[in-house]
Each structure stands twice: as C-alpha cells, then as structure tokens.
C-alpha cells in the first residue's frame, strides 16, 4: 500500500470531516449559548438535505446554489422552534428538555418518511467524478468544494459572533444572563436568533452533505449521534473545537471504513467519544469546567 494512497484516504476523510464540522457547529453554538442539547439536530440536517434535494429535482439547480435557501429555511424553522416552544423549557431539568426535543425529532423524521418515503435519494452532478491531480494525489472535486464552503461558513459564523452587535449581544447572554437582562437585551429574540443560526449551519451542512451521500429519513438519528460525538470531542460550546472534532471523526471513519468493515466505522467514533469523556470531559478545545 503506497503512502500516496493512504494520504489520499486522509485527504478525503479530512474534507468530509469539514462538512461534519459545519453540522456540529450548529449544535455547539446552541448548547454554548442556551445550554440546550438539541436532540433534533440530525433531523434538521436531513431537513437541509431534503430542501436541497427538492430544489435540485424541481428546478434542476446545483445543490451548491441551493445552499442559501436550505440555510434560510432552517434558520426560520430554528427561530420559530426556539421562540414558540423550546423557550418555555430553558429552565426545566435536562431530561424534560431531552424528551421535548425528542418529540420534535420524532415528528420531523416521520414527516420526512411520509413525504419522501423510505428510499434513498441523491443528486447526480455533471462533475461528480471530476478530480484534481496534485502530484501523485487525487482529490475529489465535489469533496473539495464542499469542504471549502463549510470552512467559509464556519469562519463567517465566527466573525458574526466576534464582530457584529447581535453576535456580541448573544455572547453576553451566554456569559451572564442576568447581566444581559439588566442592560435590556431582548433575550428571547437573541436566543431564537442563536437557535436559528445553529439550524442554518446544519441546514447548509445538509445541502453540502447531499453532494457526498444519498438522503433517506433514517439518517436522522445517525447524524444526531454523530453531531454529539463531534462536539464532545472538540469541546461543547467551542466553535473551532467542532471543526477539529469533525475532521477527526471524518478521518477515523475514512480509515476504519477502508481498513476494517465500513459498518464498523462508527464504533471507532463511539470509542473515541468514551475516551474523550473520561480523560478530557471538556473536549480537546473546550474551556475549563
């Protein structure tokens, strides 16, 4: 087995991992600000995939063009969900929140099942099999495009939180809720914006993921769990951590899928999760307890 070949697997894994990272970013942002664990995250991901799929099917547009639509659609869903449902459950015990979002997830998954049926659906792109040759390496064009866009969106989100007024206000709510209320921030609205942005990230991630895999309704639980693994490994609430976790999981899946059975690839992800939980419970890039 040539080193080029192994490097090729590593590159493919890293690129897929960047898209995973974008998905996990949304989960991490929502938890970081509101301490709400979004158990309906995989459902939102699949929602983004279906939006992109529908637009591709009806208008024949490239899913990359449809990415803003998927993101916007999910932003609206996330905003409304937080504002009119989850907001009433911010203060309740974790297990009640968990059940609430689980019920939401159940409704989403089965709505997909009803509307689209159980079959896997994918897009056929004219450039699906194009690739770039860099020296001895072969890099898939689709994977590279998806990864670059994912990293760009992640950077934009980081900029939003660091530079804009709304972004700073959201961070203020996360740091000191009482203080934020005292200075007159509209916490309900800001929470809803955060949930919306988290959902938009995962929607965009879904549109990109559709370039790489086919979509079917039962992907939902897999993506929810994958999202959790990634953010815990990277550090819940840490945005760079989500990207790092995504890349690590992308790599472990690529290698496990190649050297062992493809069906065993998520075993490594769960194994990694157990190790991180025990030895670095705050994640690789998480802040102290």
């Amino acid at each position, binding site marked *: 087995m040539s080193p080029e070949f192994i490097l090729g697997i590593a590159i493919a894994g890293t690129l897929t991992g960047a898209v995973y990272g974008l998905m996990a970013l949304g989960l991490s942002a929502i938890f970081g600000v509101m301490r709400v664990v979004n158990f309906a995250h995989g459902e939102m991901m699949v929602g983004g995939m279906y939006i992109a799929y529908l637009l591709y099917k009806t208008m024949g547009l490239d899913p990359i063009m449809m990415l803003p639509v998927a993101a916007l659609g999910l932003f609206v869903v996330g905003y409304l969900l937080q504002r009119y449902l989850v907001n009433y459950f911010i203060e309740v015990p974790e297990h009640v929140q968990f059940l609430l979002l689980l019920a939401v997830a159940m409704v989403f998954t089965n709505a997909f099942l009803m509307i689209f049926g159980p079959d896997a659906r994918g897009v056929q792109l004219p450039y699906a099999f194009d690739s770039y040759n860099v020296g001895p390496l072969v890099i898939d064009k689709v994977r590279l495009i998806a990864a670059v866009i994912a990293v760009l969106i992640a950077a934009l989100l980081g900029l939003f939180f660091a530079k804009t007024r709304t972004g700073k206000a959201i961070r203020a709510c996360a740091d000191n809720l009482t203080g934020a209320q005292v200075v007159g921030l509209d916490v309900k609205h800001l929470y809803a914006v955060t949930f919306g942005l988290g959902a938009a990230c995962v929607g965009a991630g879904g549109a990109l993921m559709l370039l790489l895999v086919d979509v079917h309704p039962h992907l939902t639980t897999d993506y929810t769990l994958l999202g959790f693994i990634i953010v815990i490994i990277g550090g819940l609430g840490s945005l760079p951590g989500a990207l790092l976790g995504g890349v690590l999981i992308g790599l472990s899946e690529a290698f496990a899928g190649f050297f062992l059975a493809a069906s065993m690839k998520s075993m490594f992800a769960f194994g990694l999760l157990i190790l991180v939980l025990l030895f670095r*419970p705050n994640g690789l890039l998480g802040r102290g307890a």
Partner: protein
Amino acid sequence: MAMGRATRMLIGLMVALLLAPFIGNDYLVSVLILCLFNAYLAQAWNIMMGFAGQLSLGHALYVGLGAYAGGALFFHYGTPPWIGMIVGAAIAALVGGVIGFLGFRFGVKGVYFALLTIAFAEFTRILFDHFTWVGGSSGLYLPVVRADHDNLLLLRGRPAMFYYVILGLSAAVFLICHRILGSRLGYYWRAIREDQDAAQALGIDTFKAKMAAVMLSAALTAVGGVFYAFYTNTLYAESAFAMHRSIELILGAIIGGMGTLFGPILGAFLLTLLGELLTRLAENFGHGFEGVKQIGYGLILLVIIALRREGVWPRLAKRLGLDGEKAS
C-alpha cells in the same frame, strides 16, 4: 388509612390482570404482554434515574446483553432461560458497574453521563453486529418447538404462559422497588437525587449508593432482555441494542411520573395502548400511514410534556386520595 386504600386498589388491579387471559382474546393478551414488558423495563430504569437521579439514555445496552446472554446460552447449550437470566443479570450488572465506575470516578455528570451511556450502548450494538458466535448481523434465531403445550422451564409455549411470566416479573420488580424505597438505601438515593453535595456532607457514601442503583437497574433490565429473547425468538443487534429502544423504555417512566412507584407502570400502559391505538387507526386508513402514527405519537408526547412535566401519576394519585403512597 391511605395505605390501606392503596393496597386494596393494588390487589384489585392484580386480580384483574390475573383474570385477563380468561376474559380477553389472544390479541388482548399480546397487547397486555407488551404493556407489562414496557412497564417492567420502565420500573427497572426508574431505579437509576427516578430514585437515584442518574440519567441513562443507553438502557437498551442491558436489554441487549440479557437477551443475547439468555438467547445464546439456550441456542448453543440448551440452557434454561432462568439460568440465562442469572447469567445475563450478572453480566449486565458488571457492565453497568464498569460504566458507573468510570462515569462517577471521572466526574462525568448530567448530559455528559447520559451521552456516555449512549456511547457504550451504540459501541456494543456494533460489536454484537460483528460477533459471529451470536449470529452477527444475520441474527440469532431461537429454536421454536410446537406451541401446543407450555414448557415453563424452557419458556417455550403459548402467549398466556408468557403473559403470566412477565406479570410475575413486573410484580416482583414492583415489590423490590417498594422494599428498597423504604430502606436506608432508598433514602440515600433520594438524598443524592435531590442534592448530592448535601448527601455527601451528611456522610452518605454517594459513590457506593449510586453504584448500587446502576448495577441493580442494569441487572433487572437484563432479566427483561432474556424474556424479550424468548418471547420474540429472534435477536438482531440492530434492534436489541437500538437507540430507539433506550428511548421508548424511558418515555413511559417519565410520562407516568419518574421517581414514583406506580408512575412508570401507568406511563408504560398509557404509551403502549396509545401506540397500539394509533397503529389500528393507521391500518384502517390503509398502509403508508406508518409515519402518521409516529407523528401523532410525537405530538401527543409534546402535549403531555408541556402540560404534565412531573408526569401523570402524581396528580392522579392525589385525585384518588393515594397521597399516602411513599412516592416522593
């Protein structure tokens, strides 16, 4: 007075359940078996979360371990399931003990502890999917003998026999829970649930008490798993260890009223009957309505969580004048 009333009602319920197979048809018996099986598992989970306050979202792990221990022993050596239950319970208690030890010693708490339990369950699911001694991904089929006579020792027989077995198991867990709640350990658990630091300050060995809760809960769940294996006769790692099983298992306990004795039973019956009703409705509207059933289930769940956060039972108990039940 209040306790007397509760006891009388309980005896009435038990008599009704004992007579049910003589009154109802096979369909009713099969639905009741499902209700009791779910009630059994909900009670077992309730020990860990309801009494001791440790959230497990991976209890399918213990169902699966019990099911595979009992199933594989019977399949390979013809071992009676009652021995399989002891073996399965021991294995599950050991695994639960390892998870509890790691979680409690390394200070993994709250959401993180819950995710740790999911991780172990999913890890084991994939492991068993590749474990060829128990059939791997093509499944483990228990040999079925003719069902015209009941063999209680080997748990081969007609639905009514399974019904009485699971009724007995459920009643046994109920009595165990009742006993423990009144004991020193039961008070320790509830002290830890309410405020672990305060409990520790009072000199309670919180680590030991929590370990006892996890191991007992895991062992009892695994016994339910053995029943599941012999009732369904087919085992797939995909479904025995499935994430959705972990979730279904706890829904009943939370809907009914976590931490109470009777809540998990009530919740499991309500949800199982609701699911069955929605299935019937979906069938009447023709196939393709599987999604509708689950959506309805999800929406009803949402409403219950929104309106009865503490579960259905506490309020109902007050109505029936059963506050005297040691249900805190």
